[in-house]
């Protein structure tokens, strides 16, 4: 107790004796922190302010309405919210297994000479501009999705609502695949780092017990890394829900809610991107801004959920986690 007091006192006195450097440092650090907060607050304020006409007219009906009709000036964003979340989930369902598999390969299985170039190549995927991926999606992926993917799924599993409906290629499924390609690099990179951070003592202990490689990975490495992997998944989800250009080009941009992955859908980001420039009256713009606000709220909720989820799943004892 005494010791602590003395220590603080010394620090305080020393801070007093070096006021300029200390104050400057403190100012810069506080300034950067506060500036970021201020930007955030200003952004939310601007969005909320811009959305006011739409909020005044539709209230919470904006979130539950299913009609988006710029001619009759009726705006309901439910199909957009639905499309945003569903296409991202499809993307994650495809991306997570691939990413985790790749990450395990890179951290535990790949020969040393391959690890670096392979990681590098995967990170390069993240550098592909989204519009290029979109064009590729439109001209290469969509025809493949139409035939054979939709043909096979529809002919054999068409009784499941997920796989019925028109086989245009464009739609939630194509959007999900494009999103998967876009989020694989980030989920892979984060997962790989997490696997590399798993102490070797964990693996060695399992090996000492006579475990096979599969047993080591499934029982020692993955459980240890679980919370981190969830974090990686959420990061990918965060990236996916905000993705705009590539999704717009392949999702079919239809304002409807359908269980089928073959149907065209629409996302908040793609609706804003495609309609903002020709939104010719104030209420229309306000509706698009409000949709942006909704998108922001969704990412916030997902982040909070992620925190909660990670919190409940961290069961690894603190002593081991060192």
């Amino acid at each position: 107790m005494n010791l602590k007091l003395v220590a603080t006192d010394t620090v305080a006195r020393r801070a007093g004796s070096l006021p300029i450097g200390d104050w400057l440092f403190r100012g810069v650090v506080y300034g950067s922190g506060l500036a970021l907060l201020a930007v955030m607050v200003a952004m939310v304020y601007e969005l909320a302010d811009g959305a006011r006409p739409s909020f005044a007219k539709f209230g919470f009906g904006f979130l539950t309405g299913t009609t988006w009709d710029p001619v009759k000036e009726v705006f309901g964003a439910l199909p957009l919210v639905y499309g945003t979340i569903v296409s991202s989930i499809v993307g994650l369902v495809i991306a997570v297994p691939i990413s985790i598999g790749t990450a395990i390969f890179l951290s535990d299985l790949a020969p040393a000479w391959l690890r670096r170039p392979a990681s590098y190549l995967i990170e390069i995927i993240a550098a592909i501009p989204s519009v290029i991926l979109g064009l590729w999606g439109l001209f290469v992926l969509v025809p493949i999705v139409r035939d054979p993917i939709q043909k096979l799924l529809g002919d054999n599993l068409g009784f499941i609502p997920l796989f019925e409906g028109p086989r245009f290629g464009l739609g939630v499924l194509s959007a999900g695949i494009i999103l998967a390609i876009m989020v694989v690099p980030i989920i892979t990179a984060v997962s790989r780092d997490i696997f590399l951070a798993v102490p070797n003592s964990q693996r060695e202990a399992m090996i000492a017990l006579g475990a096979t490689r599969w047993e080591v990975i499934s029982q020692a490495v993955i459980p240890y890394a679980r919370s981190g992997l969830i974090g990686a998944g959420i990061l990918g989800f965060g990236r996916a829900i905000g993705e705009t250009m590539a999704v717009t080009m392949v999702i079919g941009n239809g304002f409807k809610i359908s269980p089928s992955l073959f149907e065209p859908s629409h996302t908040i980001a793609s609706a804003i991107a495609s309609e903002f420039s020709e939104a010719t009256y104030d209420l229309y713009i306000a509706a698009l801004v409000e949709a942006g606000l909704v998108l922001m709220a969704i990412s916030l909720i997902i982040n909070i959920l992620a925190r909660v989820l990670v919190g409940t799943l961290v069961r690894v004892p603190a002593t081991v986690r060192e």
Partner: protein
Amino acid sequence: MKQIERSAIRKWHLPFLPGAALVAAALITLLLAACSDDDNKSSAGANGTPSSVDANTLAGYPACATGGASALTGAGATFPFPLYSKFIDDYGKLCSVQINYQSIGSGGGIRQITEKTVDFGGSDGILTDAQEQAATAAGGSIMHIAMTSGSEAVVFNLPGINRSQLKLDGPTLADIYLGKITKWNDPKIAALNQGVNLPNADIAVVHRSDGSGTTFIFTNYLSKVSTEWESKAGFATSVNWPVGIGAQGNEGVAGQVRQLPGAIGYVELAYAKQNNLAWAQMKNKAGTYLDPTLEATTESASGVTIPADMKILITDSANAKAYPIAGFTWVLAYVNQPDTAKGKALAHFLWWAIHDGQKFATALDYAPLSPDSLKAAEAQVMKLMCGSAPCLAK
């Protein structure tokens, strides 16, 4: 040790400072000289000092303004952008006027001219009453000047059926876009296409997902030929589509139609040509089936009365030689120009564009103004006022 080093560095650097300053000063002087040189050149052009260029007269007016500004800004419609770029490039060389046109979409163009952040706006649609009121409140009376017109091809993908081999009329097209006709061998389509082997295939309706002037013209046409379309969807830069898949931009729609057997879509003529897409012959109001040619597009605006304010949608034209899905694209400008120098430059640029500039239209797949439209456009440009005098001057 350290102190010695520091002072050594200081001594070493100090003598160089005056030298650096001298060099910098010399550079700045040079730069200034270069700039003022440039200024002299451009003002010489703009002031209309006698040169071969200014001898060029258009319907009695010189191409370049006397005492006009050397820079103009505009923003708006993307549809005429390739043509405007050509205008800007050629007129810039002719009269040393730098024009910056941002193709941000008609909606953005209307907003910017209303906020008076640009000297002229570009729009593929007519201002609504509310928009016109807002603009009038901001800068007084605003007017539409048609610069060119364009048409939209109804493109399709049916193996074995080539360009111009399919015939459609307005009500049938509306029914397809309403989702009431879903098969290519529907009796309604078959009735218009005797002798054509129509497949028993689903129609994949493709439309634009982004707000666009193209959609405005297309839906305006559908509204004119189908009361059901008018009440259900109406016309605007984007509408609540009853059926179909949305594709981004003309290139997106063209890409989809090219790939997807059974697809139908609408694109600007240039995109249909570039992508080698099959298009349908459309039945016009007089009952003639026509290809979307530039001549047939220009005809849309002849034989019909062009109102003095040029606010006319020329879809479903009554002219028997007119292709029915066509539209003007307009420049929006305030009648009373706030800046005399800019007003002069703008008036002369627009005058040049509706006369000499029209020769660039065809090569870029735009339809030149018809004689009637040109007359109306001339009258509009003459109305531009710089103070108490017209901006356009001999």
